């Protein structure tokens, strides 16, 4: 069953692709014929400062566009987790990049730890794919968007020359959580 409204926050460091994940997720939700708002927050620096992207997916029109309490939190750095964990709803879903987040405090949430950086570096041959690996895992775990819509959104969002590797990376994230946490 699809919930009526899901608030998602994707957080990390500038350059990890948190904003792009939000964009892909939002586009996928439109392909699933949902209402969606995506916003972002980042520093003036090109990379290295805190970056986050927020996506609200709903069956109804959405007023306030910012996420206050999230159902799903993706943390791709330790700082991001420390900063945003308080905003995760009780019994929400937390996804972390195991290689970047060493310390996950005890929380009342379903926690999924994915070695996304490791998979990106070894299988996808570049760290830049860490975000689509996390997106693959997110899609499989939460079903917040359909797999088909997510893939279609990747194709329509990322630079042409990276479509194939992004789709493969999405698949790696998707499969990884399929094999158990």
């Amino acid at each position, binding site marked *: 069953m699809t919930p009526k409204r899901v608030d998602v926050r994707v957080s990390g460091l500038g350059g990890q692709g948190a904003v792009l994940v*939000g*964009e892909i997720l*939002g*586009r996928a*939700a*439109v392909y699933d014929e949902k*209402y*969606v*708002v*995506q*916003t*972002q*927050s*980042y*520093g*003036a620096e090109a990379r290295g400062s805190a970056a986050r992207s927020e996506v609200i997916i709903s069956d109804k029109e*959405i*007023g*306030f*566009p*910012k996420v*206050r309490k999230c159902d799903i939190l993706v943390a791709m750095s330790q700082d991001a987790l420390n900063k945003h964990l308080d905003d995760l709803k009780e019994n929400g879903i937390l996804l972390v990049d195991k290689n970047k987040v060493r310390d996950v405090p005890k929380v009342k949430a379903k926690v999924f730890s994915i070695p996304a950086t490791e998979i990106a570096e070894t299988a996808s041959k570049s760290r830049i794919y860490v975000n689509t690996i996390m997106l693959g895992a997110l899609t499989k775990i939460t079903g917040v968007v359909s797999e088909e819509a997510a893939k279609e*959104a990747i194709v329509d969002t990322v630079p042409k020359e990276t479509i194939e590797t992004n789709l493969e990376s999405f698949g790696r994230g998707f499969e990884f959580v399929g094999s158990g946490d």
Partner: protein
Amino acid sequence: MTKQFPPGTYFMQGNQACAEAAIAAGCRFFAGYPITPATEIAEHLANRLPQTHGIAIQMEDELAALSAVIGASWAGAKAMTATSGPGFSLMQENIGYAFMTETPCVIADIQRAGPSTGQATKCAQGDVMQSRWGTHGDYTPIVLSPNSVQEMYSLTIRAFNLAETYRTPVIFLADEIVAHMRERIIIPPSHEIRIVNRKKPRKTDKTFFNTGKTPPMPSVGDGFNVPVTGSTHNKHGHRYTADSVVHRQLVEGLASKINKNANQITNHEDYNTENCEIIIVSYGCTSRAVYETIELAKKKGINAGSIRLKTLWPFPEKAIQTAAKNVKMILVPEMNLRQIFYEVERVVHGATPVLPMNKIGGGEMITPEELLAEIIRGVSNID
């Protein structure tokens, strides 16, 4: 991508929607200087305008950017620029020149947190009064305020139509949130989009300025002998800087051209205003918190309604005056230290209490919870 953007449902960023709407409205010239959070408009038009036989130029600064836009407009093109607070400040002199020369053009100001360079990537609503009074002298601007990606599209088209209808610069005053957010948007087929083009002169026409209505506008190369000057000029465009009557008629004429059509230009959205006891007057990103606030207030037994301003100027005086007669209080939330508040207070003129709610958010919006708290506080003070 083809010349015509295919109609349909998309997931699009506000700035991109603005850029695509400009093309749909007939804009074929963009000049600008990159600045966060307006850069995507320049970026998108730099990509798209050449596909539509248009031109996009990156200029050396914002002064040159608006100069080029004004020149392009006199060459016959629909033209726009896009900037943010610091660049908007630099454009002010040329905005006055555009008013004085009755040059249709669209200036998008995507507000960020100021003063000065402030916070480049953060939202604010601090340029409201700058959009009204930024350039020197007397004039009445048209200022539009979108609150969604869909309106980044529809109000950009309206901005061009108003610029052409009244031969005047139009300020498209958006903010970082609305410009950077991505939402579902429906792009209508081109035959459903109403487009206004400027009135061209007949061969025998001799008057091109301050005719009491919108004067016809010749283009460079059309064969008319038209001086264009920011100095005081008569109906033919001839400089008359020593004549008090010519100056008075010109300045009053330029203002009244807009003022007497204010009813056609002003636009607002009412929500739950029938029988409500409190009205929230808001605009831009701040208005996005209002719908949820009204729901929250209902649960507390408070019946609140909303007037959302889609045009800031001309100011929708009548709508607010009418509403003020029937409510216990008007609340004006803004992400600045009171700008539209004083306008509301002026037109309400004591008919009902007007409460400001201001937040220098440093990037954080006014939330529905904060708005609700303010309503509850306001109600308890009145009762």
